[in-house]
């Protein structure tokens, strides 16, 4: 920005505002354009555990067709509130925030949620593009970056306009995959190679950055792990042909002296899946789930 006499005061004020209120929230979008890899489960339980650990968390359900996150927490979907917040210049995103409360005799926890919006589910991409720009969610979240420690966005499993909004808004992208689902691995590679760099180029500040993938799902046996590693090696090889090094995203611990192929795992089992029926995050109901997600949070965010 050019500095001259006419705007110097405003620019100085802007800079001062930035310095005095540094944005403290980390915005995490949970994305994989393959469905059923546990995006919503991850979002709900990460929100649960981060709240438990004393962080202030906002979750956003950006999967308007499924609305799983909203219903997993037993919160009604809105009819047009979020749409208004996103499309109307004069409406803030604050208006769409609801609260999720969890309390037992010993424990009182709550985090904020922006539920899915039925009105947005029915709109076509072309219509939406006429109403808003890709950066709208990122800009409208300005208020939240001061107020929260973590903003978690549950995206939908596609690369349509709404998903692009969610990825654009993020500082980091967390990609759940399933070891026994080849497509979830291949789609993760597509996101890493194509989608995320597209958004980075558009946004221009180096964000969003992808975090290494992790395995979500059934316990992995040794032979299954070998199959998965073989598939990953293939993906890495293909990416290398396009001069793209995906190694750090799949095998973050691998160095040239240490061929460490460990990938972070969050086992899923009946208790985690069933927690949905009680509208309570599994981490508040099950001690093992609690530990698994605490482990995930520590591995990726709390170090």
């Amino acid at each position, binding site marked *: 920005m050019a500095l001259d006499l006419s705007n110097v005061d405003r620019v100085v004020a802007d800079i001062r505002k930035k310095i005095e209120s540094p944005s403290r929230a980390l915005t995490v979008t949970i994305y994989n354009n393959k469905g059923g890899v546990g995006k919503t489960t991850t979002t709900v339980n990460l929100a649960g555990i981060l709240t438990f650990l004393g962080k202030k968390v906002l979750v956003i359900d950006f999967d308007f067709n499924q609305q799983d996150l909203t219903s997993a927490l037993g919160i009604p979907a809105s009819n047009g509130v979020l749409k208004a917040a996103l499309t109307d210049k004069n409406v803030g995103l604050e208006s769409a925030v609801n609260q999720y409360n969890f309390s037992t005799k*010993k424990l009182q926890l709550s985090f904020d949620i922006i539920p899915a919006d039925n009105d947005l589910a029915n709109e076509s991409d072309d219509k939406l593009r006429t109403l808003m720009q890709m950066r709208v969610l990122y800009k409208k979240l300005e208020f939240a970056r001061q107020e929260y420690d973590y903003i978690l966005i549950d995206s939908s499993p596609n690369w349509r306009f709404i998903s692009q909004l969610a990825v654009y808004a993020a500082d980091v992208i967390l990609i759940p995959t399933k070891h026994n689902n080849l497509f979830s691995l291949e789609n993760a590679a597509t996101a890493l190679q194509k989608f995320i760099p597209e958004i980075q180029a558009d946004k221009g500040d180096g964000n969003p950055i992808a975090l290494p993938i992790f395995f979500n799902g059934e316990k992995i046996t040794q032979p299954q792990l070998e199959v998965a590693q073989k598939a990953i090696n293939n993906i890495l090889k293909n990416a290398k042909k396009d001069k793209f090094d995906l190694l750090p995203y799949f095998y973050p611990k691998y160095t040239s002296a240490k061929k460490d192929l*460990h990938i972070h795992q969050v*086992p899923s089992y009946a208790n985690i899946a069933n927690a949905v029926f009680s509208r309570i995050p599994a981490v508040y109901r099950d001690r*093992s789930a609690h530990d698994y997600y*605490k*482990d995930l949070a520590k591995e990726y965010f709390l170090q």
Partner: protein
Amino acid sequence: MKISNIIGSLMHLYLDEIEPGEGTDAPEFLIKATANILKQKGGRNWLPVIVKETGEDKYQVISNSFVYAVAEEAGLERVWCIIADDSDDTITLTKILAGEEKPKINLSTASRDEIMAALQYLIEQPNSELKSVKLAVATNRIDEAPRLYWKNFEPITSLKCGITKGKKLDAIKSVFYLTPQSMPDTINDVTILRTMTTVELKAIAKKRGIAGITKMKKDALIEALS
């Protein structure tokens, strides 16, 4: 330093001047097959045996005993050796570097990542006793426990992370050691108090002269002490 100091040097020593020390437990097949290859490929042990000097023209193997056994099997007259000093630290270090002994880490002060790596190593061993242990769960519970004050490994068995007394705990002992600190006289930290038993808490409460101890439940005790 003596002019004849040979520590650190590479020497071509006579095999019959070297004592095998503890020897290797490698299977005969590996020794015989490696000896054959050594003979075929020039007969020079590029990987030296590590020895210490025990007397005039007398040496003892301290690590790489496998190479020594192979050289002996191959019928070498002389073997390439590095002379190390004879301190216990050097012996332990070279054994660990050679992969002959397992290194241990201090569980009293280890970081979460170190604990996780150690447990992962144990769990992934073939025929591991800890196969059924859930890595994430065990790491969290051990990391969060007041291990700074543990005098032995018994408290691990009460963390409910699948590590029970016996073979499983023995496996744990093979990678960790403890340098316990003494418990501070006044513990106010709720997280530490919570890990103690009600009996222990009552004992502390009694020392501090808190009234009505007998009727107190654990939560009440923790509140009174913190």
